[in-house]
């Protein structure tokens, strides 16, 4: 198979073959990451810049480790404190960095579509590490790999995505990916946290947690941002936990062998019961973090290879 994408901006542009290719390669990197000597040299001599316009610890660390394990020279730019604050536009920042000839730009931005805009202006591969409420493709891919390894397949599964769908780029990327791989996707949450016309996305929408979790193979919880709990979207934290927080009782409606996922960071006692999150028989939350590094290594390698296989200037 040939992975031809110039950038990884979203799941929207990937085919099922692309997705399988990324996951297959990532599987190999899981093995490498578990070995004693974790070093590859696929990206040796290449420069990776992580531009995070929004705070992130785990995603940034994951991308940094992924790059370093493949031998890239990794640089982190804390964009919060940078020239953006001095009034420089996103495009000027991009052009400035572009002039330093990076090979990979990993970008997170608080505004939907900002990473697409940036990708138009630079001539290296751009990896979307989350843009606004739009997409977070590597999160969906690492979730997919986790599911595939836990369930032995990534099709014909029933998967419930629960919580704050409206503000979640993780949910959007997962809806697209799981749909492309022919799974049944259910969305569960209060109507104030559902995007408009989301039922047009080939998903089933549930407002009741127990109904929504009925016989599912996978329960994917989403983080509820603190600022949404103040009565604007839901009445209170405790009412939310009561109606939508995942606990053993609600989980009992899912299949017995159903797994529990969470993209992190978790709010224990808000969207998920702490004991459940730590239950190694149900929770794959730690595996998700592990898969994250492998998936990001695979994405970066495939993007770099796709670039190398094309002559300069004919990228489309």
């Amino acid at each position, binding site marked *: 198979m040939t992975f031809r994408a110039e950038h990884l901006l979203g799941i929207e542009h990937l085919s099922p073959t692309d997705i399988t290719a990324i996951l297959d390669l990532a599987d190999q990197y899981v093995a490498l990451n578990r070995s004693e000597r974790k070093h590859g040299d696929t990206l040796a001599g290449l420069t990776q810049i992580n531009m995070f316009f929004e705070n992130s610890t785990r995603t940034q660390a994951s991308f940094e480790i992924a790059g370093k394990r493949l031998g890239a020279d990794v640089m982190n730019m804390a964009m919060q404190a940078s020239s953006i604050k001095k009034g420089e536009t996103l495009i000027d920042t991009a052009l400035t960095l572009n002039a330093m000839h990076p090979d990979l730009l990993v970008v997170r931005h608080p*505004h939907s579509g900002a990473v697409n*805009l940036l990708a138009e202006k630079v001539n290296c591969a751009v990896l979307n590490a989350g843009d606004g409420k*739009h*997409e977070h493709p590597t999160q969906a891919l690492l979730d997919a790999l986790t599911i595939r390894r836990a369930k032995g397949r990534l099709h014909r599964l029933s998967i419930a995505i629960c919580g704050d769908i409206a503000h979640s780029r993780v949910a959007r990327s997962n809806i697209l990916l799981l749909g492309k791989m022919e799974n049944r996707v259910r969305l569960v949450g209060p109507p104030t946290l559902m995007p408009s016309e989301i039922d047009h996305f080939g998903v089933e929408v549930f407002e009741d947690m127990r109904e929504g979790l009925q016989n599912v193979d996978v329960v994917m919880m989403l983080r509820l941002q603190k600022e949404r709990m103040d009565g604007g979207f839901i009445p209170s934290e405790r009412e939310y936990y009561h109606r939508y927080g995942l606990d053993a009782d609600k989980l009992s409606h899912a299949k017995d062998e159903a797994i529990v996922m969470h993209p992190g960071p978790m709010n224990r006692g808000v969207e998920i019961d702490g004991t459940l999150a730590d239950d190694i028989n149900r929770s794959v939350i730690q595996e998700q973090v592990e898969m994250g590094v492998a998936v990001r290594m695979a994405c970066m390698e495939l993007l770099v290879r796709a670039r190398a296989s094309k002559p300069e200037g004919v990228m489309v």
Partner: protein
Amino acid sequence: MKVLLTNAILIDPEAGTETAGAVAISAGKIEAVLSETADLTAAKYAKHTRIDCGGKHLAPGIIDIGVKVCEPGERHKESFRTAGLAAAAGGVTTMVTRPDTLPTVDTPETLEFAKRRGGEMTDIRIAPMAALTKDRAGREMVEMGFLQDAGAVAFSDGDNVVTDTKVLSRAMTYARSLGALVMGHPQEPILSDGAAVTSGKFASLRGLPAVSPLAERMGLERDLALVEATKVRYHADQISSAAALPALERAKADGLDVTAGVSIHHLTLNELDVGDYRTFFKVKPPLRSEDDRQAMVAAVASGLIDIICSMHTPQDEESKRLPFEQAASGAVGLETILPAALRLFHSGQLDLPTLFRAMSLNPAKRLRLDGGRMSKGAPADLVLFDPHAPFILNRETLRSKSKNTPFDGQRMQGQVLRSFVAGTQVFPPNA
């Protein structure tokens, strides 16, 4: 100067006809509208300069309500000179200018400035609007009487909705006593705050802050209730959603003095045109669904929506080359209003007299301007165009200083051949 425009197809929006004929112009007015069989060799036309229209279409010039000229304050985006050039090339013979400049046109002095600059810098007619409230802040009404004496044709806070209903109610009451036209921007301001697109499947997919089209209906219904109470003359600047139409229909049936406009962009584009976050398609209110667009076209055809405007809003590259949420709203439209409107003619939805009723006749009537007619005694503000001439729009060729058109690279059909203001050719510039 006397001119005889021969061999044309004359579009008369009042009569709703297209007929072959000629137009005689004298002293800046239409001296006579002549049929195909009229004797053009008559002695009284001997001294007229003759222009053969080559069988193309001649219509009353477009009167565009809501042009932002950006002068004073943002002359790097547009000036009276460049807007005038763009208007002439687009068949717009009267620009009804918006007050949302820097500073706001909210005093007789700033209005005088706009009028004077317009008179000096362009041959296109300028009909200035003034703000309804000082600094468009929605708190205190402007000196409506003085402004009307100075030539303000309407009062509008642009897309700043007057949220304080008491202020709006008083301003409308005062305007009624002057017989002034109040132009509203129907939008529930809290619902639409921060929205970049219309809510729905597309907005959800793109993860953009969105507003329901119902916000427009709610805004319109509030304004119409106040119109009912105050009996003011009212014009809704842009209706863009089907949900708002029943309220408009009811108000008209109840005999309120109400008219409504629609921008050319809402008639020819829909929300999906935004595609991959293309900021040139970010307008206010946001582009709607295809169903809404079709409803707007039907409303223009039926006359429920009275006026088509360009909502010409120049924005420089810097304000548009930003993430979609942060990018400025608005699109230029003076040069593209006619070819874009002709899309609706070519699709068989609107005939040419209907288009010019909405672009020329109705705006003139609403603003009590003497124009928009193809009849004896009307000002000789005319546009000659070929509705079939195809071209591909290149935004760099636009005469506006700002090039933010959503039609860049698109196939268009319909080109302006000549424009006349008061019988004088303003496009192409006379050699």
